[in-house]
């Protein structure tokens, strides 16, 4: 690296500026991540210390691959993530566009939109449980009044219907997050583009499709990545709402990992599950980056 050239000093400045962020993250995260990888290669059953902690290579991963409950959990997680994200993107985009407008009461709307995100997950899950309770729940009451049901339905004991409160609760809670990220993205779009298009006779729908959405790609990318990350790690919400039931029909991988690690005290196996979750989410993130054609290293 030529120290005198501008390129060299720019690189130095660059690394200096990212150093604090990297330092904090490295300090906190390197050891736990390394420990998790390392544990995943060992047999480590806390309840049976006489077995020691032998190195077993990839045996934990093989066990995961052969475990039907893991694959089922993966399926549930994927289903949950896809449906939730789709709904959240749609509603979030609408809200972002709405929050961007100037109208009376916009301050209230913006604050109100964020309320679900501000409520602790556990409390939100409790609320939605109440709402979908069979006897006194609002949903059943409304559906009976509207004639869709003759008698209260017990939502949580059928696999298919149990997903409804789960997804609704997640969409309710997380759409504000999506809306806010998309709103931030909207701020970066040059308004003169819209004015020019309007002059050329383009209607609102065309403007949305050809100006807004393409320029919103970076924000959509960030939103997709972070929502997918969160979706794949969903735990609290489902734990409180259904506990993974009925049976294991709504059990996501993070809940399965929690069981393995902290209930059954199988640290080796649980760590391997965590690594698998990591690999999947990393692959998805890279897929988004490629798919949306955004270069991480920069546009120019």
């Amino acid at each position, binding site marked *: 690296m030529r120290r005198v050239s501008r390129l060299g000093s720019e690189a130095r400045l660059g690394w200096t500026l990212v150093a604090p962020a990297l330092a904090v993250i490295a300090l906190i995260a390197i050891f736990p991540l390394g420990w998790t990888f390392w544990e995943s290669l060992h047999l480590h059953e806390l309840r049976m210390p*006489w077995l020691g902690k032998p190195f077993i290579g990839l045996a934990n991963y093989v066990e995961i691959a052969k475990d039907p409950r893991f694959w089922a959990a993966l399926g549930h997680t994927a289903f949950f993530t896809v449906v939730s994200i789709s709904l959240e993107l749609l509603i979030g985009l609408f809200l972002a566009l709405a929050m961007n407008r100037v109208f009376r009461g916009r301050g209230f709307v913006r604050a109100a939109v964020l309320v679900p995100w501000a409520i602790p997950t556990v409390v939100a899950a409790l609320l939605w449980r109440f709402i979908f309770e069979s006897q006194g729940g609002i949903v059943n009451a409304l559906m009976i009044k509207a004639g869709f049901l003759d008698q209260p339905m017990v939502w949580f*004991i059928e696999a298919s219907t149990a997903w409804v409160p789960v997804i609704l609760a997640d969409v309710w809670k997380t759409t504000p997050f999506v809306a806010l990220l998309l709103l931030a993205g909207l701020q970066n779009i040059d308004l003169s583009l819209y004015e020019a298009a309007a002059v050329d006779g383009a209607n609102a729908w065309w403007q949305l499709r050809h100006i807004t959405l393409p320029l919103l790609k970076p924000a959509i990318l960030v939103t997709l990545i972070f929502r997918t990350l969160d979706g794949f790690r969903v735990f609290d919400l489902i734990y409180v709402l259904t506990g993974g*039931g*009925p049976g294991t029909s709504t059990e996501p991988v993070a809940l399965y990992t929690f069981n393995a690690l902290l209930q059954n005290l199988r640290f080796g196996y649980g760590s391997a599950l965590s690594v698998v979750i990591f690999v999947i989410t990393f692959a998805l993130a890279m897929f988004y980056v490629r798919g949306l054609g955004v270069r991480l290293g920069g546009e120019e």
Partner: protein
Amino acid sequence: MNLRASLAPLAFCLACSRAAPSNETVLTFSGSALGAEGTLVAKQLKRFMQLNPGIRVELQRTPDDASQRHQLYVQWLNARVGNPSILQLDVVWTPEFAAAGWVLPLDRYEPEKSKFFPATITANTWAGQLYALPWFADVGLLYRRTDLVPNEPSSLEEVVADAKRETTKRGGPRYGIVFQGARYEGLITGFVEYLGAFGARIIDDSGEVVVNRPEAVRALEFMRDELYGSKVAPLEVLTWHEEEARFAFQNGNAVFMRNWPYPVAAMSDTAQSKVAGKFAVSPIPKSATAPNGHSTAALGGAQLAINAYTDHPEAAYKLIAYLTAPEQMLERAQAVGQYPTRFGLYDDPRLAGAISIPLESARRAIESATPRPVTPIYTELSEILQIELHRALVRQAEPKEALDAAAARINAVIDRTGMRKLMRARFAPPPQAPDTNGHGE
């Protein structure tokens, strides 16, 4: 609940953490310290410190939610942290903690094992040693509306018949019987009672898995029938934990309820309960159709154990022996209504006023209580059983099929973890040093 009540433990802690002479032994006690229990614990700890100058006890609150407390304990003990010195264990954790080497065996302090109910001692014994002292007991009980069913039912079939009769009457309660049927540990506690009623078990004394024997299948079929056959239990119970069932009964919507003893206080309060003075509690009866059936209760409750990494085991033992002494147990019963684990106290008239069900019923229930399988891998077993039971109850599987699957998977876990030998020889010494050449598979 007033200001003083809740701040007492806090003030207690702060006062303690002031001057600390260096030759003082400091113990940390982690246990339930909510509301009235908190005041009581603070009082008893203070008395202990007065009787034992030189020992200081600090109170460290941990969440009462079982899985959260378990998670914290696992985290601390895995890190070999010596605090808290005293651990409050749920009844199914003792073998697990004992096997992991996290709590100290207590036999060398010669605890008064014969003075406690045998079931509570069994639940806390692993590999021939006692690892925790039973502190208070919870047992599953049958609550019934005395205005509708004046006499204690003598069999499960009678319970169902009474429930059916009362719910079909005009103006009768909505539900016949309510229980905890969600997919969690509470489901197993209820199931254990049905198993006992039909003379079945999960694992027998020789360590064999017998949860799919015909009697057990009948027990499960009986439970299912309550939901879909006689329909005395609403489908909602399959999503209910203790509180939902309690409120259903407390609001007058159920004829019978299966629950722990804790609701009695709230339900006797005329301000919030619609059934105050109109209910009674009795042990859960057996089935009239099963030759080996017996009335039983699931054993719950808390025990006190000593952290294996503590620096002061003797002092810690003194503390747990003190807290489980008869006077303290009686005081606890009087203050918060929890059932003592020393059967001698049930002859003491002072206890009669303290727990709000007749002493005889309480004693009968605890004497006949069934511990859940005493094994370190209990949580895995329970999870398998919960899943299969719940599948059978929501009709995703037939009872026989579900229990066969449960038995197969439980056996697989036992084999995988090499527990079979240990479970057969329950009173043999624990295995020795780590096997560095490989693992049990």
